């Protein structure tokens, strides 16, 4: 991950370390708390700046293309938040959040599951085919069953990369991508073949009746899949931070050899991480199909996963922190449809924004790390002015002068 990059050379110079004051005898709690607040603020700023920079750079790009960035972004607000479209955004957020949580789990183990598209579509295709065939069962039973089927199918789709990685350390980036392309093909074959609705001319599956879909939250149009996604985020956060499984994942991510030394069954853990990640992607497919679409067309591929990746990193692989980012992107993506149509641009413009966010994120991360290490070219006075611009300054802190 971005944090695993080795430390620049000048970190070794002890005089550079100014950010870590030794606790004094009184153990002033206020001091500690203010440092914690400062650290949180730093984290927040570092997560937000890439997004803002990407929006600005995207605006410049729009200007170059002869579009009006102001009206583009206000269209996003209009189409993503106003007049009840926030409900669409919330529903768009459900699959995005589930995929984000699935990626968080596996990225914590420093394993790359990039096969989300194939996993998503295989799960989606199976349940669109299955749903019209089980209309006689009670709705709660069939919905649960469909969720489980999608999760199992998507999890099964990670098995080949997982086993190859566990057994031969085969690069999982490649294998998951290849399985993803195959999964897209398999989904198409299913939709055009056994699951095709014979009554329509275009290749698509039968439409699931409205009363067989996920019920909506009373008073809104939002389906309960959104609640499922939120619950998944909370549960995942608990499991990742408060259980031994979460700890084992983190140890594996930090150093696989160390994990083996402390008795972690690395092979089994790799496979488990893959299965959990795949199952969450499958749940995303179920939430999207059963909550919003109700059927599947051939060659349909929303490619949610690609756009989710930067936000998983911006949230520092934290399953709760990812929620606001996903909310932001859900609005961007829902409103982006309207904005792109109004500006007569392809919706793929959002991909550019996402790519820019990723690029700026790595750069900001780099600068932030240098700052943590105290590497800067500013004079002590300027530096403390930057750190705390609103304090009236009469003296330069002693430690910073000696640090230079």
């Amino acid at each position: 991950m971005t944090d695993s990059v080795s430390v620049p050379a000048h970190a070794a110079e002890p005089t550079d370390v100014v950010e870590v004051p030794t606790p004094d005898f009184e153990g002033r709690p206020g001091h500690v708390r203010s440092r914690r607040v400062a650290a949180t603020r730093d984290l927040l700023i570092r997560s937000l700046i890439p997004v803002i920079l990407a929006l600005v750079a995207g605006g410049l790009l729009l200007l170059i293309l002869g579009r009006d960035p102001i009206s583009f972004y206000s269209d996003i607000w209009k189409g993503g938040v106003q007049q009840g479209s926030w409900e669409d955004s919330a529903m768009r957020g459900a699959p995005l959040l589930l995929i984000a949580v699935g990626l968080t789990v596996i990225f914590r183990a420093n394993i790359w599951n990039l096969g989300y598209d194939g996993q998503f579509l295989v799960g989606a295709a199976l349940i669109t085919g299955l749903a019209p065939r089980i209309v006689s069962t009670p709705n709660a039973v069939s919905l649960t069953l469909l969720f489980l089927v999608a999760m199992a199918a998507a999890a099964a789709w990670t098995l080949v990369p997982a086993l190859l990685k566990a057994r031969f350390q085969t690069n999982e980036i490649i294998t998951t991508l290849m399985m993803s392309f195959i999964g897209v093909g398999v989904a198409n074959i299913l939709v055009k073949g056994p699951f095709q609705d014979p009554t329509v001319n275009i290749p698509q599956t039968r439409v699931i009746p409205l009363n067989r879909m996920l019920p909506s939250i009373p008073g809104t149009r939002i389906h309960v899949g959104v609640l499922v996604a939120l619950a998944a985020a909370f549960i995942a956060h608990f499991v990742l931070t408060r259980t031994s499984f979460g700890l084992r994942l983190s140890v594996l991510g930090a150093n696989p050899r160390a994990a083996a030394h402390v008795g972690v069954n690395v092979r089994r853990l790799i496979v488990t991480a893959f299965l959990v990640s795949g199952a969450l992607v499958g749940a995303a497919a179920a939430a999207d199909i059963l909550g919003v679409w109700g059927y599947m067309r051939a060659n349909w591929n929303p490619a949610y996963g690609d756009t989710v990746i930067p936000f998983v990193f911006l949230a520092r692989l934290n399953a709760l922190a990812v929620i606001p980012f996903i909310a932001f992107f859900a609005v961007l993506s829902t409103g982006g449809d309207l904005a792109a149509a109004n500006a007569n641009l392809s919706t793929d413009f959002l991909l550019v924004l996402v790519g820019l966010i990723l690029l700026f994120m790595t750069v900001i991360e780099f600068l932030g790390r240098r700052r943590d290490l105290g590497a800067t070219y500013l004079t002590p006075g300027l530096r403390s002015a930057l750190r705390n611009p609103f304090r009236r300054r009469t003296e330069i802190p002693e430690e910073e002068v000696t640090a230079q």
Partner: protein
Amino acid sequence: MMPLLHFAAASNIFSRAVLTSLVGGGIVAGVPLMFTALGESISERAGVLNLGLEGMMLLGAYIGFIVAFHMHSQTLGFVAGIGGGAIGALIMVILCVWLGLDQIVVGIAITLAGEGITSVLQGAEFGSSYPRLGAPATAAIPGLDKIPVLGPSLFNQPVLVYIGFAFAGFLVWLFKRTNIGLNLRAAGEKPEALDAAGVSVIATRSWAALATGGLAGLGGAYLSIVGAGVFTPFITQGQGYMAIVITMLARGKPGWVLVGSFLFGISLSIATALQLAGVNISIDVINMLPFIAIILALVIFARRSYLPPALAIPYIRGAR
């Protein structure tokens, strides 16, 4: 693969027209893969994992197509394609090689931004119409092009194809017989040693990554100018990733890269050949074939694929 054998017995799959179109199509489809995979074999050797290959191919494909379309010159198109890929690679060089940022994240970013920007620009300029280029000029090698089956497909191709073959040979020489080749390998195997020997790891990796971008751009330009004659969004369809796998399985050896590229080229172009043979097989199955082939190859040869130890690890002088 079993159904294919079954079909083979039943139809005239081995007729001359089918074989010619199979080999010829394999070459047309394989050349973009060949350039891109040869490029990747340079940068992988030097320790730069280039996951942005897909984006660089698309940049090369788009810019190459635009230049060829407006300037009415395919040669200029190829040159512009190289430039387009190199622009993508420049981002990689600055962020990953100079600043030591995460190569996987930056690679994904370049791919996403490349996909997005080429699709947006194409839509902004042409709307939903896709103008075509004329058929590419081919140069037949006198005598050899009369050989049945192989002649028309192998020896009657655009000049760039022959240049590509020659380039693979050049790379073999470069890797095996020159200091540059040794430096490249050291930069991927043990960069500290290269640094200690007084050669700049950063410079070596920078040039390697730039060359990769240029070659990927050239591959993309070939795809849009010669292969399809048209630029459509997402035209590469995962070929950048296929190139990475080919390089991995070929263990970075140019000769094997060549073989792998054309094998995958054939599986990409098998649709046309099968249609000629009268086999009616779903396009989805055919599109999956190269990826199934790769997965099978990885399952069977998993232990034989090779990546340099310092791959994707940024080199920072003096760091441990």
